[in-house]
């Protein structure tokens, strides 16, 4: 394996991904998709619902492989599940039969760390997401926002160099979501990971990311890329009222709107 020292964290080069529908028809989710994520960069991917945004993430994790093109992580082709990758899911992917601390310990234990060691690390991460008091609770006893914080701790404890997030906060109410954005930016700035954040919420994308990729209606390919030059650290709750934010929002929405309309018209047809 020839690993280049300064290779980008993630490269998708002319990637296509086809899959078979349950009725046996071949569908194309991704076509000639090219994206580069530098180390430490926060990239958001927006696009119309069901266009294949999540597929890009599955290709990076190694849970799915490309039908054509190449996916490289840290300069090396993806061959399986990479231990340097962390993933935060849209749905609740915590283990409901484990307590909060056991959920956070899961990663280190799977990776063969000793139990006391894993427990200490888990306590540390629970403190960082402000859930020390809920160590012994079960997920169903927590609110949606708290469960998401557990999921973040569960992912961050493995020290991922690449963090993939698939609409992680879409099920939360607006106020909780803003709190989670702050939490995420704080954890990210400490961990210095590269992030790919998939969302259909444009404001969320602009508020968080360094770069926003706009995808076309499926089969998805990159329509345009915007660099978001807002200063960090950002205060997500307030940033949306700044003029530059509004300008970005207007420009990108004009671009995205066409795709959303195409996708909508197709679904209605």
């Amino acid at each position, binding site marked *: 394996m020839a690993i280049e020292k300064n290779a980008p964290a993630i490269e998708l080069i002319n990637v296509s991904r086809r899959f078979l529908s349950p009725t046996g028809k071949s569908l194309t989710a991704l076509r000639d998709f090219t994206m580069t994520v530098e180390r430490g960069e926060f990239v958001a991917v927006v696009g119309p619902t069901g266009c294949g945004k999540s597929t890009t993430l599955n290709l990076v*994790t190694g*849970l799915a492989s490309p039908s054509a093109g190449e996916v490289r992580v840290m300069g090396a082709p993806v061959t399986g*599940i990479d*231990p340097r*990758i*962390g*993933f935060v*899911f*849209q*749905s*609740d*992917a*915590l*283990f*409901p*039969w*484990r*307590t909060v601390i056991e959920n956070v310990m*899961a*990663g280190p234990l*799977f*990776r063969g760390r000793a139990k006391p060691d894993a427990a200490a690390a888990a306590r540390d991460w629970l403190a960082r997401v402000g859930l020390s008091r809920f160590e012994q609770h*079960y*997920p*169903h006893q927590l609110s949606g926002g708290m469960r998401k914080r557990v999921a973040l701790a*569960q*992912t961050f404890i*493995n020290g991922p160099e690449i963090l993939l997030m698939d609409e992680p906060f879409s099920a939360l109410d607006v106020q909780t979501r803003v709190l989670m954005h702050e939490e995420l930016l704080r954890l990210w700035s400490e961990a210095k990971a590269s992030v790919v954040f998939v969302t259909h919420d444009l404001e969320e994308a602009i508020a968080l990311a360094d770069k926003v990729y706009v995808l076309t209606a499926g089969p998805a390919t990159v329509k345009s890329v915007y660099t978001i030059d807002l200063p960090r650290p950002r205060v997500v709750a307030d940033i949306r009222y700044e003029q530059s934010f509004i300008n970005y929002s207007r420009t990108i929405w004009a671009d995205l709107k066409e795709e959303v309309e195409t996708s909508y018209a197709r679904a209605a047809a």
Partner: protein
Amino acid sequence: MTDAAIDIKAGAFRPGTSDAEIEAAAAKAARHRRRTVIFWRVAILIAFLGLWEIAARQAWIDPFFYAMPSAIAQRLYEWTTEGTSEGPLWYHLYVTMEESVIGFVTGSVAGIIIGVALGRNRMAADIFSIYIKVINSIPRVVLAPIFIMILGLGLASKVALAFVMVFFVVFHNAFQGVREADRAMIANARILGASNWQLTRSVIVPSAMSWIFASLHVSFGFAIIGAIVGEFVGSRYGIGLLINIAKGSFDAAGMYAAIIIVMVVALGAEYLMTMVENRLAKWRPQPLHETQ
């Protein structure tokens, strides 16, 4: 965040509707409801037994066939104090329980292991599913004579019958439970670093557990059926034998007494199972409780 709760004076509510009073009224209503439920349960039982007794004594029904509660109680008393014509009752009960428990444990362990294995392996599941369907279509009790012929009159033939009664129920639920395991949860575990074995052990099996437990509840009853049917067909000891002998001697009270013994044991087992399940499933949200 500032706390700007509006201070509500107690006087804002109508008299008799303070928090404490509402809570007390709700608790009282719940107590009352519980008592009503228990009262009617007991009343119906007494009415049923009383009617039976009177009907038998007045010869509205033939006590020769239907016995009567007092005669059944008498028989139970005799069996427990003096033993049955075939030896002490406790020994028969012990034999039946031994057969049921061994059949239940082996049947459910095998059902869980094979159910999980096939649930995790699509190819194997597709290949074997047809055979399982075919074997499952055999009414289990017709196997009793075969087992007795092959394995003899002793313990083994009844255990085998209890085993096949239990196995398929548990197998189906374990298989289904594995198939229903949440895909995001599985993907999460794999990305967190779980190997295939870790995935099965700490994600797949626990998430199939509620399915498996649902089957364990019914299958202990099935194990008892297996043991008793086996004893009907051929045995030297067991509750099934007692029923068979009572039938042979036209002893209706004896048959009903044996049925009651089996009922008590099955209810006891069900109670134990629920206790174990609640223990293991303390992570689940509390279901809305039925008033017991």
